[in-house]
Structure formats: structure tokens, C-alpha cells
């Protein structure tokens, strides 16, 4: 794999990380902490939405994020033929 290919691979990887980590930040620090009072005025069944994100929703999203990352990276590895 030559240097320019490597650079491209790394850049795409970083782009995925930036997107996924923004979502990670948004659901926990955003919805669960900084915006919790505003979101608490919205209801999700018996839950106040902000409280739900802090104690349930953020954790579900974390799990999904990792599996999405696994899929994206497996595809990326194949594209650049660096998969094993």
C-alpha cells in the first residue's frame, strides 16, 4: 500500500471517528446532561426524555455506535484491501 493510499485510508477513518464521536457526545453530554432540563419537558411514555437519555437511551446508542463502527471499518478495510 503506497503512501497516498495510506493517507486516504486514514483520512476516511478519521472522518468516521468524527461523525460517530459527535453522536456519542450529543446523546450523553448533550441530551443526558447539558440539555436535560429542556428535554425533560418532552415525555416518552412514563419517562421524561432527558432522564431517559441519561439512564437508558445514551447506553443503547453507545452499543449501536460500536457496531456501526465495526461495519464501516470492515467495509473500509475491504475497499483499501487491508482486511485480513
Amino acid at each position, binding site marked *: 500500500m503506497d503512501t497516498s493510499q495510506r493517507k486516504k485510508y486514514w483520512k476516511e477513518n478519521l472522518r468516521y471517528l468524527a461523525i460517530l464521536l459527535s453522536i456519542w457526545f450529543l446523546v450523553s453530554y448533550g441530551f443526558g446532561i447539558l440539555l436535560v432540563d429542556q428535554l*425533560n419537558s418532552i415525555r416518552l411514555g412514563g419517562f421524561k426524555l432527558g432522564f431517559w437519555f441519561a439512564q437508558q437511551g445514551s447506553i443503547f446508542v453507545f452499543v449501536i455506535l460500536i457496531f456501526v463502527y465495526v461495519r464501516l471499518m470492515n467495509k473500509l478495510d475491504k475497499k483499501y484491501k487491508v482486511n485480513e
Partner: protein
Amino acid sequence: MSIQTWTFIIVGLTFALYIGIAIWSRAASTKEFYVAGGGVSPLANGLATAADWMSAASFLGMAGIIAFSGYDGSVYLMGWTGGYVLLALLLAPYLRKFGKFTVPDFIGDRYYSNVARTVAVVAALFVSFTYVAGQMRGVGVVFSRFLDVDVNTGVYIGMAVVLFYAFLGGMKGITYTQVAQYCVLIFAFMVPAIFISLMATGNPVPQIGFGSAGEDGVYLLDKLDGLMTDLGFTAYTDGSKSTTDVFFITAALMLGTAGLPHVIIRFFTVPKVRDARKSAGYALLFIAILYTTAPAIAVFARTNLMKTVQDTPYKEIPTWFTKWEDTGLIAWTDKNEDGKIQYLPGPAIDGKKPEFSESRGDYGERIIYNFGKGKNELYIDRDITVLANPEIAGLPNWVIALVAAGGLAAALSTAAGLLLVISTSISHDLIKKQLAPDISDKKELWIARFSALLAVVVAGYFGIHPPGFVASVVALAFGLAASSFFPAIVMGIFSKRMNREGAIAGMVAGLGITCYYIARFKLGWVGQEETSKAEHWWWGISPEGFGTVGMLVNLAVAFLVSKFTASPPEEVQEIVEHIRIPSGSGEALEH
């Protein structure tokens, strides 16, 4: 059959299982001892990581902490799960590609410096020892509560079991026992949770149940908020911590989780980079099952408790209450002399634990010396939430015995993972890498085994004689991991320009300021007492959250210093290029 008999049977069976696995998975080389030969499947590694991660505190304490702190408890839920996203995206795949045995290995090689390696070893030892002491204590406590033996005897039994499989199998033995332990602990956690959720709301899924309505059609959380605000508590779904503090504590726990050596080394055991990513996903999935159930149990337990005890005459209280009063986890003083229990905000007692006298009061309650001035009459230990829940809900005896086995599985699996880090730090990072590089693999393996033995003995000693600061060490362990390992590793992967001088200066600065802050505001070891109170916290950040600041200081110092010092040598930059590309990781490298 009695609870006692059931407990002996179930705990005995699980222990026999762990020992059987240990004999089956003996390690024959250092590679098997340190990283289980690098051949663990992602699913098995995910299960083992989850067991490794969830300690006695997660199993027994978590639901209780949330039950008694409501929204504020979210810091633990998010903090101890969100770290896995960082781990999966920023650390695990690259460290797996790097392919050595330990975290100090990476730090030492990437920063071409034995000083950096030594700083990392010291931090790893410190973090692991503080953490393991609490686990051994946890084993003792579970034994003493369920099997009626002395706490110290419980610690000895725990030491013997852990030693057995750590000594024989190293990482290989630990990995496969942890797989079994995860199954035991999650079954033990979920069975009572499902029963209780069904009883409270008719929905068997606790995660949905606690957002549903009870028989009267009122949502459970609204009812609980109402019960609490009526009595002057903060509403359950509102916190009493400041937003800044919640933010910083959550961040410190996440960064610390991603930086804990006993978690990181689990990802050295899988065959490929791809597997490291996937097994981080599995690990978090398995952890999330418990972590999303805990807040549900917390709500059920708190509601149940408030409804059962509030203004109930002591004479009519259910038997579980008096049983746990006998063990000292509950204490009641009839302050307004009406014979009824008033459970109100504020501490019921002076100090941390009730001090019981031998005599009984007018209603048969145990008399305590140190009841406080406030109106609150009831002292409740938070651990009771998980321990007593099956009894409060009237579940069969075998379920209660199962909880004991689950608590032991949680404590033992975490202790074993930590002990491995300690023994590896001594035999590999200190002896093989620094003091005696020429020893043979066979010799190193025996040194590793004896360091494990030594580590168990030391951990057992701390379990029996817990140093006063053990209760507050969790803050310390996470703070130190967040302010040292996490930034050092991430910079090592994502910045090619980061050099030896920057990394060492960063780690020392981060560790230094975090230690100082915790020593001053948590332990009271430095500074004047009158200037070390909560109102003197810097920017209102509690010691638990200060690891985040330590991490930022580490980053800032590292970048500043590296700007004014020489770039890392060519071959180190090559290492960085190498670990960024997944292919060709092969097996974990021999030395």
C-alpha cells in the same frame, strides 16, 4: 430448602465450575499466560471483558447508588458505558495491531523510553492495587452475609479460588472462567429483576417496565417523584449535583474506563484487529444488559421502600426489615415517639455507620448510639437494594442464593483481571523488559506465576486490613487512568509528532495535578482543612470529576513540550504508520 442450603449448593457448583475450567486451561507459555495465546474469539472476549469490568460494586452497589441518588446516578451509568465507545474507536484496534502484551509495553516502545515505561508501570500497579483491594473485600462481604462466615474467612476462600486459576492459567484460565462468571452473574441479576418488573408493572422487561404505569394507572416514575417531593426530597428524576460537576464526573469515568489497564489488555487476546473492534461491541452489549436494568431495579426498589416503610408502625413492618436490621444495614430510631417510621431527607445518624448497643427499644428495635438531630428516623445501607430485593419481592429461596453466587462471580472475575495486570507488570514490564532481559520464556512464566501469588497475598492483606482510603479509591483509580494512560495512548496513535519528552511531561503533569487535587479535597492529606471543603473546589468540580481536568492538563503540557523538542526518530514514526493499518497484525508478537 433454606436459603443457607441453597446458597451452599449454588456457590459450591459455580466454584467447582471455575476450578474445572482452570485445570482445563493451564498456560504453557508466557504468551498464553499474558494474552491467552492471542486466540480468544471476539464473542468469548466480549463476555470475559464484561465480567472483568463488572465488579462487586457494579453488581451489588450500582442499583443502590442510583436508587438513592436518582438522576445524579446517571454519571455512573453513562460514565462506565460510554468509555467503551472511546475504547473501541480510539484504542483497542490500534493496540491490538501493535501486538504486545501490556500497556507499559506500548508506552515504552512508542515513546522509546524506559522512563516512560516505568511511569506507566507505576501507574498501572497503583491503579490495579487500589481497585483489587475493594474486590477482595467484596468477596469477604458477600460470604459473610450469605454463608454466615467471618468476613476474613470469606477473603481467604476468595484468595484461594482466584489464586488457583490465576496461578495455573494466567490470562487463558482467567478468560474462560470469566466467560462462565459472566453467565452466572447476568442470570443472577436478571432473574429477580424480571420477577420484580412483572410484579410492579406487569411487564417482564425491566427497561420498559420502569417507564410504565402501575395498577393504579399512574406512571411509576411520576409516582416516585411525587412520593419524594411530598416528603421534601429532591424529585427522583431531578439531580442535586451541578451540571458542571455531572459533566466532569461523567467524562472522568469515561476517560478512566478507556484507560484502565485491566480492560485494555483484554483486547490483546483476540486474533485480529477486526476482532478487537467487534469484541468491544460485544463487551458493551453484555455490560449494557446489566447497566440498563440497574436503573429499573433502582426505581422499583425505591418506590417499594417508600411505600412500605413510610409512617408504618414498627410493629407491623415486614420481616425482611428486621432481618436486615439485625445485620446492621438498617437502623431506626423513634425520634418523635409515635412508634411509626418516618423516612425523610437528611442523615438519620451521625457518622457513616450506625453504632448499635446490645439492648432493644420499646418496640423491639435495635438501639443505636449515634442517631442524628434531624427528623429522619431511618438509616438504610444502599447495598441492600440488590441484596434484599428478592426478599422484599418475596421471591423463592433459590433466587436469593443465586444473587450470592452472582455477587461472588462479579467480585472474583474483576479481582482476577486486576491480579493479572499486577503480575504482568512485575514479571514482564519490570523484570523481563528492564532488569533481566535474557531470561528464558519458561523462567519468565514462573516469575509471572509467582508475581500472581504475591499479588493475591497483597490484595488479600488489603482485603482483610482495608486502608482507610479504600472507600474513596475508585475516584483515584479512574482519575489516574484518565489523566495518564488515556491521553498518552491516544496521542501515541493519532499524533505522529508526539515525542518522548512531551508524553512523559504530560503524564507527570496530569498525574501530579490529579493526585494533588484528590489528596487535598478527597483525602485531606495536604492543605488546610478549612480551605479544602466543597465550596473551595476549583470551578465546582468534585474530586471524582477531576480526572477530566488532569487529562486536559496532560494534553496541553504534552503538546507544548513536544513543540519545543525533537521529533521522534524515524523508526518510531514507522511504528505509528504500522499500527494505523489493520492488515498484517498476525499473532501477538513474541518479544
